[in-house]
């Protein structure tokens, strides 16, 4: 193990990155706002690549505008392109909201986007112009997850304002699937509480079939709810790592939307890991019970009961297996904790994120029971590839980019999170809560059973 870690230290370059760039995260959040179109302030390629990457996962149209920097723009500034871009976007899409993310390029040449927005608004005084939200997302400062959380924070910080008290519960659910978001909404509906899930791309990135093309798909968190976030009775935040890297480097007062609301508007914030596994999901349901004073609806309690039943039925197939887990830090953290809960040992947990807190968080959630687990930040796939042989894993759990390693080792991989580019139905996968855990558990058990069956000389008919 010593050896393996040394190997990675010698590489300056990133080889098959296990992370994406910051404006991708911003675009996701913007897609989760009602009536919003994202515009990336920078050159054309970034926007197109991000669109393509998201389209391949969600199998949905993902329109993201670009202000399309040219040589001239980079010398004289992006003012003209910004204004033309906004004009054109308004003309084609007539959006209620325009979400603007910066790129490495626009940040490096020092574009002052808030100023550009102000100037545009002055120029169009008297007109009804869209709401602007701006997130600063240079990728050299962080990965897509940093961009994601930064944008959630920016949206809330720029829109939330105090008004009449409300019963709204803010749920900042992090980077989960459209199906996960729909499930959270179902839970909240069943509790009968008023709530906001932000960002909510459950419709915009997983639309039903259309008769006519919708330039801005239906759905998304309504701006009114984000404004009302300041008056909510409580916030719940999924993820304990979030955007630590960027926010600490910017040394802002609040790192996340929940924290910001707590500081500025006294909305109590409960932060918890992504609720994957029974224990983690219990925390979420208990929190909802506490905030609302309503017991968990029977329907969900029964789902929990069935999950426990499934754990019992399946425990022997998974016990003692060795897993390699990779992806976004918060996802990896919760996955490791869930695997711990069912008796699977994670031998390597890795992420391209760079918060430097993954190890600490994993130790905390698993009571420090795995001193030998290799936990790595700023990790890339080739490093994993070079370490896996000696780790002798039984299963890989992570996004689809790790498939090639699992393939080389001829071991099963359970695809979770983002991106899943080589399978169908990624937008409909569940990960969180009792339902998501059930689905994950079934998939993991079956992957292991299938592996055993395929490698058995008998090809048995019963499990």
């Amino acid at each position, binding site marked *: 193990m010593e050896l393996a870690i040394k190997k990675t230290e010698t590489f300056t370059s990133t080889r098959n990155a296990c992370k994406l760039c910051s404006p991708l995260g911003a675009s996701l959040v913007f897609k989760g706002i009602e009536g919003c179109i994202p515009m990336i302030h920078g050159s054309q*390629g970034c926007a197109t690549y991000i669109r393509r990457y998201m389209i391949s996962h969600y199998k949905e149209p993902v329109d993201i505008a670009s202000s399309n920097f040219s040589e001239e723009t980079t010398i004289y500034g992006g003012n003209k392109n910004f204004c033309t871009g906004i004009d054109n976007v308004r003309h084609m899409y007539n959006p209620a909201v325009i979400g603007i993310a910066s790129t490495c390029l626009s940040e*490096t040449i020092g574009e002052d986007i808030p100023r550009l927005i102000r100037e545009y608004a002055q120029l169009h005084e008297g007109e009804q112009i869209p709401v602007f939200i701006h997130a600063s997302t240079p990728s050299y400062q962080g990965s897509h997850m940093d961009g994601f959380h930064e944008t959630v924070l920016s949206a809330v910080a720029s829109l939330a304002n105090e008004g009449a008290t409300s019963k709204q519960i803010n749920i900042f659910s992090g980077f989960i699937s459209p199906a996960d978001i729909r499930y959270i909404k179902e839970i909240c509906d069943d509790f009968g509480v008023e709530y906001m899930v932000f960002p909510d791309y459950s419709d915009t990135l997983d639309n039903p079939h259309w008769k006519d093309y919708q330039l801005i798909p239906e759905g998304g968190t309504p701006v009114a709810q984000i404004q009302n976030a300041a008056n909510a009775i409580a916030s719940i935040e999924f993820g304990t790592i979030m955007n630590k890297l960027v926010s600490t480097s910017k040394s802002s007062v609040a790192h996340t939307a929940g924290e910001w609301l707590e500081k500025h508007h006294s909305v109590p914030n409960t932060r918890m890991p992504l609720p994957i596994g029974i224990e983690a999901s219990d925390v979420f349901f208990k929190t909802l019970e506490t905030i609302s004073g309503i017991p968990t609806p029977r329907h969900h309690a029964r789902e929990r009961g069935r999950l426990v039943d499934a754990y019992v039925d399946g425990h022997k197939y998974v016990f003692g297996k060795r897993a390699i887990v990779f992806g976004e830090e918060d996802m990896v953290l919760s996955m490791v904790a869930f695997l711990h809960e069912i008796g699977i040992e994670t031998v390597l947990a890795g992420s391209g994120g760079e918060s430097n807190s993954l190890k600490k968080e994993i130790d905390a959630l698993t009571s420090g029971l795995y001193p030998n687990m290799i936990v790595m930040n700023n990790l890339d796939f080739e490093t994993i590839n070079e370490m896996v042989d000696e780790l002798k894993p039984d299963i890989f759990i992570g996004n689809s980019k790790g498939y090639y390693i699992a393939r080389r080792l001829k071991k099963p991989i359970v695809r979770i999170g983002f991106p899943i580019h080589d399978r169908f139905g990624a937008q409909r996968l569940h990960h969180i809560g009792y339902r998501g855990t059930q689905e994950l558990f079934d998939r993991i058990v079956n992957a292991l059973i299938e592996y055993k069956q395929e490698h058995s000389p008998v090809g048995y008919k019963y499990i």
Partner: protein
Amino acid sequence: MNAILKDRNSQIVRAGADTKTIACNKPSLAGAVSQRACVFCGSRVVLYPIADALHLIHGPIGCAAYTWDIRGAMSSGPEIHRMSFSTDLHEKDVVFGGEKKLEAALLELIDKYQPKAAFVYSTCIVGVIGDDIESICKKVQALKQIPVIPVHAPGFQGTKKDGYRAACEALEVLVGTGNRPAQEFSINILGDFNLAGELWILIDYYKRMGIHINATITGDGRVEDVANAHKAQLNVVQCSGSMMYLAKQMKEKYGIPFMKVSYFGIEDMSDALYEVATFFKSDDMLTKAKEIVRFEFARLMPELVKYKQALQGKKAAIYVGGSFKAISLIKALRLIGVQTVVVGSQTGTADEYEIIKQLCDEGTIIVDDSNPAELSAFVKETKADIFIGGVKERPIAYKIGLGFCDHNHERKEALAGYEGMLNFAKEIYATAMSPVWKFTK
């Protein structure tokens, strides 16, 4: 809401109705949600299939992450090209410069992967922080004794087309450095990227005619072959948008003539064989080419007729990378009874758009550098049934109930050559005839 922006009008014409020539080769309009990527993208897709070279992307992580194994360009041997290498610039590199990091990255990667050459792509950020890539490349080249070639590709310095040019310039550095004698009747195949193994289909035809393949640029490409490309007697260029520049340069420098061909559709594929035979003034080759065509024709036609009967009257929209390919597609579709009603490309040329205008039925919409708003409006207006495009167009088609055929980088079915024509027909048939459409009406 309005699908077409005023400033985009000049890039849209209608066959028969419009006398104006289409405007093209322009930077994309700000805010227009172009389907194009960037200069870097253009250079990367062209050079990427060179399988024994190291492709190092100098910049922040995104540019490299989004292009990891992005094309289905197959290799018969090494596969270094399928890796995504990045200098992954961080804030301190942006502030203090990334040269040291680049040098260290190059050295370690060359040691580890033993490539035959290295391409170093500079992306947007590098274009503004002013790293001296040239000198780092020179230094590493001297140290490691392999060609280390900078590819100047900051995204903002033009369009995808300029990236093609940057790639050709990088190739030019290699061409002429080898000293391998070539056999008689040697050609280079330029502009086929061996997606889904298409190149191997073509090579087989040419070999059957007695032609020797000197270098394939860049499909299943090898550094050594590129280095010896100047030994061929003829450059056969497909996807003219990306490789024409190299062909012209090679003609100028080494006197190697070139011809433009397309391998899509029976007609164009057959021409590609005949023209090469004619070039070598060989009756024997021509006879063999005719044999191939006759044989393949006899094999294909009965099948195609079946598809044609089923597909007669269907309408298609085409939106692809280059306009040259679009021309072949229009003809191939016609062969199976499908009428083209919308044709567009990301980086077409005026000449080719003109040919398209002549080739298409009246009213066909021809568009340069389009976007989702326009494309969705066009297919609705023309009542297209099938869309032929790439990943980014697929959801536009599916979402409103059109069939779709992927004719882009990521296709998994070979669509070139005779076999490819059959696959193409099958795919169009499958997408048009699926019973699922009854639920979308």
